[in-house]
């Protein structure tokens, strides 16, 4: 049994490890100090976990839109997505 068929590469490994760390970190944070639901600038009441999901999904869309509409480096979109994530987690 080998995992050769999964065709791992360094960038995707880093990507998934980052996501996994985010999820584990969130779980530990919420287990130690549960922070309840609240209403920020988003039109719905959210928990930090909800905001993380919204942030990740919208970041994926930001990056895809950048890739599809412009020919500039994707790092710009990445920076925008990170800033957006922070804004969303803090004030969303």
């Amino acid at each position, binding site marked *: 049994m080998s995992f050769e*068929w999964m065709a791992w590469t360094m960038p995707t490994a880093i990507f998934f490890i980052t996501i996994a760390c985010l999820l584990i970190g969130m*779980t530990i944070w919420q287990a130690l100090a549960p922070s309840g639901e609240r209403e920020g600038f988003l039109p719905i009441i959210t928990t930090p976990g909800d905001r993380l999901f919204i942030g990740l999904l919208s970041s994926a869309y930001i990056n895809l839109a950048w890739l599809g509409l412009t020919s500039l480096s994707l790092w710009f979109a990445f920076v925008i997505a990170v800033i957006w994530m922070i804004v969303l987690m803090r004030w969303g």
Partner: protein
Amino acid sequence: MKIQKRTIGLIIYFILLMLPIYWMLNMSLRTNADILSTFTFYPQNPTLANYIKIFTDPSWYSGYLNSFYYVSMNVVISLVTALPAAYAFSRYSFLGDKHLFFWLLTNRMAPPAVFLLPFFQLYSTFGLIDTHFAVALSHCLFNVPLAVWVLEGFMSGVPREIDEMAYIDGYSFPRFFLTIFTPLIRTGIGVTAFFCFMFSWVELLLARTLTTTEAKPIAAIMTRTVSASGLDWGLLAAAGILTIVPGALVIWFVRNHLAKGFALGRV
């Protein structure tokens, strides 16, 4: 007068609904030469030759058996794993419960086409290609979430006082769950089993891709016939009619719960 107008409308709808199925039944009772030469609204020389061929030719009837094998395995796996989880979702609030519930939903909604290639590779690695188990496991992707959702809907209808009383009386969780709770929701379990059966039975894409010969489902055997040149319409229609029979036989028992099952337990 008003009632009559409604009834007439309903009857027209049912006729339109049954017409395509009737037409296939009509075809299944005729030989291919008869179908291609004459156009009739009912079989003038009804014959069971097509059905006899399906029941005597192993390459045909093994398709039905294969489908039954993997569908039954899937129902068992789905129910066994989903029962405790549905209980947890209906009775407890725990860390990440809502997110987990949502994640299950995404798998019910995910396009099977997306999972096609990795499933093939994954099951190849474990040497499971062309086994019933592979198809049963791959159908868990959408059936386990469905089972959790439907069972949770039924379990939430059972008052929690029953659980509390049982725990006060000194029942352990497994004993309570098996001897008191499971009988209470047996309707829900039956309905869930029916829907797992159904959604596994109607699926084609994964079942076809993960099998080659030994575990090939009836659905795939039928599509093979379609692509062959000079295909036998009568035989194809008979095979189709036989795939409708299992669902039609049990539909009466779940008629009052159909909406619940199709709406993921949310009605």
